[in-house]
């Protein structure tokens, strides 16, 4: 393992981790408000296809990213109408949203299959990017990698330090009490669900514009489900979600390097490693059962009836 290899692993790790972290931090806010949206995969795909289509049409990736967030929010709005206003079961609706997202994105994107696109270039900061190991890892990434860190920090501050975040958590912990205090539970949950949709869409945009600049059907390949799992294993803590995402990305890349070097471990086992390592570490750092119970939003997935 020389410095250059480590740098390559570091760069690849942050690219693998970014879509997971984005989608997971969005879902975290949704769940903190007491809503469980299993449609992350569908929202990511909607974002991926919207980002790709708009970027190809306009040549402007920034518009593509905005379109992706709008597409994710649109699907999230649909989910919100069904679960919050019409009080449908959240688990079933979330699953349906994923199926819908897969089908819809395939339908919308069918003319874009096989269309190439140039990736968004990473920012190259002279001198800083050229520092061995640290350079490519910290200073040589594409903008969205940095945006992810800012977002995680922002969400962490919002939930833990701001009054509005406290209200969101209150709604997730006990919606009846929050309602009795005069907070509009449904309106607050709508906003949280929409934020989750925007982040899912942004994660999808990262896949179709930066990571693998193309549109192919179902290109998320299960990353939405990994993001969902990260939220739980990180016990609803934003920074732990980020750690989990980077751990998952890191182990994924390291096992590929071990394979390439001809390591004598069966590749099937190596492919399991990212999952095992991420779950293992997150369970270890969150092994205090009492604190997990305190962290899990008590009203998650429960339907709120304002009149009851």
């Amino acid at each position, binding site marked *: 393992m020389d410095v*250059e*290899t480590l740098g*390559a*692993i570091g760069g*690849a790790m942050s690219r*693998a981790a970014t*879509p997971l972290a984005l989608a997971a931090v969005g879902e975290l806010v949704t769940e903190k408000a007491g809503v469980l949206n299993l449609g992350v995969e569908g929202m990511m795909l909607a974002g991926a296809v919207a980002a790709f289509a708009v970027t190809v049409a306009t040549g402007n990736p920034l518009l593509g990213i905005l379109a992706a967030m709008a597409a994710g929010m649109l699907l999230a709005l649909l989910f919100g109408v069904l679960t919050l206003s019409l009080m449908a079961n959240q688990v079933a609706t979330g699953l349906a949203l*994923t*199926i819908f997202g*897969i*089908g819809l994105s*395939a339908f919308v*994107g*069918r003319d874009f*299959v*096989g*269309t*190439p696109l140039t*990736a968004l270039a990473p920012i190259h900061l002279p001198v800083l990017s050229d520092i061995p190991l640290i350079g490519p890892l910290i200073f040589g990434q594409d903008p969205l990698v940095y945006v992810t860190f800012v977002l995680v920090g922002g969400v962490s501050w919002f939930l833990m330090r701001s009054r509005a975040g406290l209200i969101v958590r209150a709604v997730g912990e006990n919606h009846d009490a929050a309602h009795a205090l005069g907070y509009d539970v449904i309106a607050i949950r709508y906003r949280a669900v929409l934020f989750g949709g925007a982040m899912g869409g942004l994660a999808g945009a990262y*896949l179709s514009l930066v*990571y*693998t*600049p*193309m549109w*192919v*059907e*179902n*290109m998320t*390949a*299960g*990353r939405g489900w990994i993001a969902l799992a990260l939220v739980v294993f990180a016990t609803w803590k934003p920074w732990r979600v980020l750690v989990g995402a980077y751990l998952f990305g890191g182990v*994924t*890349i390291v096992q*590929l*390097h071990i*394979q*390439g*070097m*001809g*390591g*004598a471990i*069966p*590749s*099937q086992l190596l*492919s399991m490693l990212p999952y095992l390592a991420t779950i293992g570490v997150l369970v270890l750092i969150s092994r205090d059962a009492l604190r997990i119970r305190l962290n899990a939003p008590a009203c998650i997935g429960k339907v709120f009836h304002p009149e009851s």
Partner: protein
Amino acid sequence: MRTSIIRMLVGAALAAGLATGGAQADEPTKVGFIYVGPVGDFGWSHQHDQGRQALEKAFGDKVKTSFVESVQEGADAERVVRQFAAGGYDLVFTTSFGFMNPTLKVAQQFPKVKFEHATGYKRSANVATYAARFYEGRYVIGVIAGLTTKSKVVGYVASFPIPEVVSGINAFARGLHSVNPEAQVKVIWVNSWYDPGKEREAAETLIAQGADVLSQHTDSPAPVQVAEEKGIFAFGQASDMSRFGPHAQLTAIVDNWNEYYIDRVKAVMDGTWKAEDTWGGLAAGMVHLAPYNAALPADVVEKAEAVRKAIVDGSLHPFAGPLKNQAGQEIVPAGQVLADDKILSMDWYIEGVQGQLPK
């Protein structure tokens, strides 16, 4: 996931079809296709669907085709095969290795329906098998890789360690070593047929480890795209991926099922269909190479063409003896070639491939 919706629709359509009574003499031949990936994968399933569309073009309203895409290999596949079989379909193509057992199981219960399973090795009275000798094409691209690599490290993004993939790696390595004995093949398994993100990660890893030519046996254009970005070379897989790497793609192994599908449907119409095995390669046109990259030197193109023609006329066999396995034991003595059934069940690396084959 999406298939379940399609499946419901298919089910509804089939029910409607059954309600209007059985087959009449002038009814079109009904042909069903089951794909492992989405038709929009730009790879394996995409090429099978090209074949399906060729049927529609060739037979017009004499044939009625439908397909279900992204079907999981396993129990899910059995349900879909059964749905086609029960729905009055005359011929069902199941186009992935993992559909083998479900196909045979359903075929036993529906002796009147004809089935064709791609890349498998089990047949029965109403199950035919077909595959393409991809390894022939892989030998040719191995030769091109050997003449192109400067770092003497060639990367290979692989899906699952099944015989079709293993024999492809081996043939590629043989072609490579025939012109460049010191070059090494590094293989990375992604344990997926289709995951653009993972394929990209594997390709980047191989490049970080010194590979300057990439080959792939996965279905998305991600590795070709990475090669283009990093300014190295690659070979497309299943379809021509030059759009994703105009400078990078030296050529691609293109699957071509069109003529085969047309022939088989014709046989069903004529009543001459038999449950046989078809295994065509470069000579039969089931495998062909995408146009060579203009940047390839003339002598490399010449050599590649000479090798291709030699495989077509039978004077060169990618697995001709003396052939040794990784441990150096001789498997095929000089003057003989590896038998077809041994190629179809290949689960060992030949001498010169790096790393351990996952079992």
